[in-house]
């Protein structure tokens, strides 16, 4: 089939789907649909990880990103007032600024990718480096310090969330459902 192996075919299909879903995230009007397309994008990326035999990364991508962070996003979007009349109208200046910032980000991304061309791509059979066992050995010896720092980061996030979350509990909003 065009001289491509099955892996290459799968890579192509997954990449196409990932990019398409990523574009859909931006182009859909409904924020809930955007979140769902983002989840699909994550699944495609998890598929890429599996093709690279980085199984732990793949499943963590699903558990943490699709299963936790996106649930949080969905929670926030679903429990906001999404009626069309409550939608804030963006001022033209805001739109221009947003466009400029997005453009700069794109520029930076393209610039970063230019360096990637020189990377040597290691070919060969499926590497076993991404399996949980090998990953754990490295994580708990060589990358011990970043691992412990990560817990401090999580602690800071937890404290921050509670600080912000608890601040407006004494506002007595009638519209807010409590349980």
């Amino acid at each position, binding site marked *: 089939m065009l001289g491509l192996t099955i892996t290459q075919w799968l890579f192509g299909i997954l990449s196409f789907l990932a990019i398409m879903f990523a574009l859909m995230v931006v182009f859909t009007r*409904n924020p*809930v*649909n955007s979140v*769902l397309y983002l*989840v699909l994008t994550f699944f495609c990326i998890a598929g890429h990880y599996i093709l690279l035999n980085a*199984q*732990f990364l793949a*499943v*963590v991508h*699903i*558990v943490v990103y*699709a*299963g*936790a962070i996106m*649930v949080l996003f*969905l*929670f926030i979007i*679903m*429990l906001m007032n999404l009626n069309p009349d409550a939608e804030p109208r963006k001022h033209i200046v805001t739109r221009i600024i947003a466009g400029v910032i997005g453009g700069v980000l794109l520029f930076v991304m393209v610039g970063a990718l230019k360096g990637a061309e020189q990377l040597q791509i290691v070919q060969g059979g499926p590497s076993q480096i991404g*399996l*949980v066992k090998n990953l754990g050995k490295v994580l708990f010896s060589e990358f011990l310090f970043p691992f412990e720092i990560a817990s401090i980061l999580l602690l800071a996030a937890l404290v921050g969330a509670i600080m912000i979350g608890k601040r407006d509990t004494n506002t007595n909003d009638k519209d807010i*459902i409590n*349980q």
Partner: protein
Amino acid sequence: MIHLLIYKAVICVAVFLLALGVAAYATLWERKFAAFLQDRKGPNRAGKWGLLQPLADGGKMFMKEEIIPNVSNRSLFILGPSLFMVTAVMTSAVIPWGKPLMFHGKLYDLQITDINIGVIYLLGVVSIGVYGIMIGGWASNNKFALLGAVRASSQMISYEIAMGIALIALIISSGGSLSLKDIIEGQDKGVCNFVWQPLGFLIFFICALAETNRAPFDLPECETELVGGYHTEYSSMKLGLFLFAEYINMFISSAIMAGFYFGGYNFPFAHELYEAFGWAEGSFAISLFGFGVYFIKIFLFICLFMWIRWTLPRFRYDQLMNLGWKTLLPLSLFNLALTVVVEYFRGTIHF
């Protein structure tokens, strides 16, 4: 390659039909069981002992009018129950159902796939299961449905943490493999993991009840407050999928508990028994017998689920959240510490 694909396709369909059949008859058994506990007869008109009742119920679901409310979000409304059903079925993909089977001189696993991150895969699929309920409840654009969906999803995510930590303790005491097959084969000698993880099992069991939204954790569809909870607006087969997926979830979580903590298809003195019968390794008889034993365990767990449902009253929401965060989470960490101490005395690790 084609050979492998056919074998995998056959086993996929077989497992799927198994899950479907068990779920269908679990609905009948639930009604019979409830009837028994309440001193009634239960369904007994459709066929002998009501054995055709699940088919009648299924047929009825197909024949009902499909209602999609005007105010709902059409595509998401359909997506919700579909996703819930798909995720319920996907959990069955990593469960080994019996000893490998010898067929035409080759050994075939009675498992869809043996991946070496099976445990985290289960956790991942369970965490995706939240989407079905959330999307369905929100897309209905009904206040009861929204409340039910929010309750269900925050309940499910709250109990996922304790479940994950209980599983870590299990992995440590079962020898450090994330593959379900390894965990079950590790109990081959007749000592099941429950011996080392009694507290872990209790935590996992409570979390399984909460994850499947079974009583006493059925607040998301608590009919006295929320009509039908997240499936208030659903009718026809879309409602059917929601209800059906709940039974599939119950079946799969029973299978997981029986496999993780009670040896799955292994049982004490299995090898002695097989030798006494003169059954060779990989023979059809051993596979079938192991499968039968596994199924009895699963059946007992399903009965336990039902017994609890028809005995205990429902939690209040604050009690539910407090149980999840303030009791089960510290308890599961305590269980982890305990496991480490026990492993030290078993000689797995040294100073």
